[in-house]
């Protein structure tokens, strides 16, 4: 009798323990995968961040406050814009800027050097001339382009790290941090999420930049579709599987205008002052830091597939390039991670 009593108690205990364990596992999964999502229009784009886990909510609040701060400092114009002040003082005097702005310009200049000027933040006067994306697009005269091009050189940006100042040496020069500021913002957002203990997050800073923190909450790789650069309505034409990494895409299919039957896109070659003529339809850089990807994707587009991919590999990063013959190229580091999703494209014969 005592034995059977004993057995019953053990059974009950085991059942109770099992239940507690089940509930604990359930809560643990919930705590780890609870999704918090927030969207805002900042940095002249749409920002969408999904953070997983219970620390996500507080983290997102801090992230968006920080992004709004970066936005204000780095925009090309507007109250509180440090860039506007720097540009207005070109050829006049050095301008003291925040640590944020200083470090972004510093990084931009590094990439300008590395890409031998194919990515150049001082391209702003030429970009302004074309007006692509402003609604006032036009094809400038060759003489106008020559004049504006004379103002373009990253070598004429002088940084003083002791005083944290930026000086553009010639009147009329201008810088536009555009894409690279978004990359910096993504990196800052990721750093804040991580500091709050968020282990999984997906950040989209505009449609051309996606940054992943950790792996997907289910432990698998994130699957990111790459836009079909020819038939836009088809959506994605390939899927890239990534873990903790930043993606940045450049393509000529989004911002352009057509004049007299000629299509002019928004990626200007600093060598010619005109839209880059390239064998590249779209390039996606995969890098640990988003800021690197934004600078490099522009450079690869301008350089073309072969020299562009060499630059990416020399920088220790990876990329996917889609060329005009509908071939999909990728660096060795992405082997097994690029999956075609459209019959219009094929892997490049390598």
């Amino acid at each position, binding site marked *: 009798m005592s034995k059977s009593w004993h057995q*019953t108690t053990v*059974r009950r205990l085991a*059942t109770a323990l099992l239940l507690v364990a089940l509930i604990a596992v359930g809560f643990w999964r919930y705590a780890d995968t609870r999704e918090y999502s927030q*969207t*805002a*229009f900042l940095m*002249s*784009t*749409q920002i969408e961040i999904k953070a997983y886990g219970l620390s996500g909510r507080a983290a997102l609040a801090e992230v968006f406050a920080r992004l709004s701060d970066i936005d204000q400092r780095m925009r090309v114009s507007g109250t509180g814009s440090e860039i506007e002040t720097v540009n207005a003082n070109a050829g006049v005097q050095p301008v003291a800027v925040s640590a944020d702005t200083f470090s972004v310009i510093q990084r931009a200049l590094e990439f300008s050097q590395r890409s031998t000027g194919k990515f150049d933040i001082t391209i702003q006067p030429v970009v302004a001339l074309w007006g692509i*994306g*402003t*609604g006032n697009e036009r094809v400038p005269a060759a003489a106008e382009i020559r004049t504006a091009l004379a103002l373009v050189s990253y070598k004429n940006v002088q940084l003083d790290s002791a005083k944290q100042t930026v000086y553009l040496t010639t009147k009329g020069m201008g810088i536009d941090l555009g894409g690279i500021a978004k990359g910096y913002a993504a990196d800052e957002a990721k750093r804040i999420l991580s500091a709050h203990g968020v282990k999984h997050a*997906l950040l*989209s800073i505009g*449609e*051309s*930049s*996606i940054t992943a923190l950790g792996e*997907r909450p289910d432990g698998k790789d*994130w*699957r*990111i*579709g*790459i*836009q079909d650069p020819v038939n*836009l*309505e*088809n*959506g*994605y034409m390939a*899927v890239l599987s990534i873990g903790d990494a930043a*993606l*940045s*895409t450049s*393509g000529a299919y*989004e*911002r352009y205008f057509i004049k007299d039957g000629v299509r002019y896109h928004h990626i200007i070659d600093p060598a010619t002052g005109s839209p880059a003529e390239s064998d590249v339809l779209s390039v*996606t850089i995969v890098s640990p830091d988003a800021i690197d990807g934004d600078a490099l994707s522009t450079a690869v587009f301008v350089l073309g597939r072969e020299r562009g991919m060499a630059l990416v590999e020399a920088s220790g990063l990876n990329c996917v390039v889609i060329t005009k013959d509908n071939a999909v190229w990728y660096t060795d580091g992405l082997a097994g991670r690029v999956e075609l*999703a459209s019959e219009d494209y094929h892997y490049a014969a390598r």
Partner: protein
Amino acid sequence: MRRGDRLLVIVLVVAIAASWIIARLPARGESLLAEIKVDGKVVQTIDLAKLTEPLEFTVYSGSSNQQTNVIRAETGRIRVVAANCREQLDVRQGWITRPGQSIICLPHRLVVTIRGESGVDGIIR
């Protein structure tokens, strides 16, 4: 095992099986939901799969409703056909047809998204 234990085990097994099946059920019917948001708020949802007639309407936004985007929805697809924004990126983008795709008009803070299982966590463009 007593009757109570047995009952508990049965209830647990049934509950687990049921939740497993429910989680794997395909979405009911063939639906393709397009969602139109202005400044983060949903202003309209349309089931593109169930549309029999084309639908064209204007979304007004901005402080005095001076911003306009004319949306056209047809069976299985949706686009912005006209807008009074500067860049016209939304109009130029044309149709979207698949879950996960979206059209964004930044100056008007208008977003058209097709919801549903897209097979990817995001699309980069």
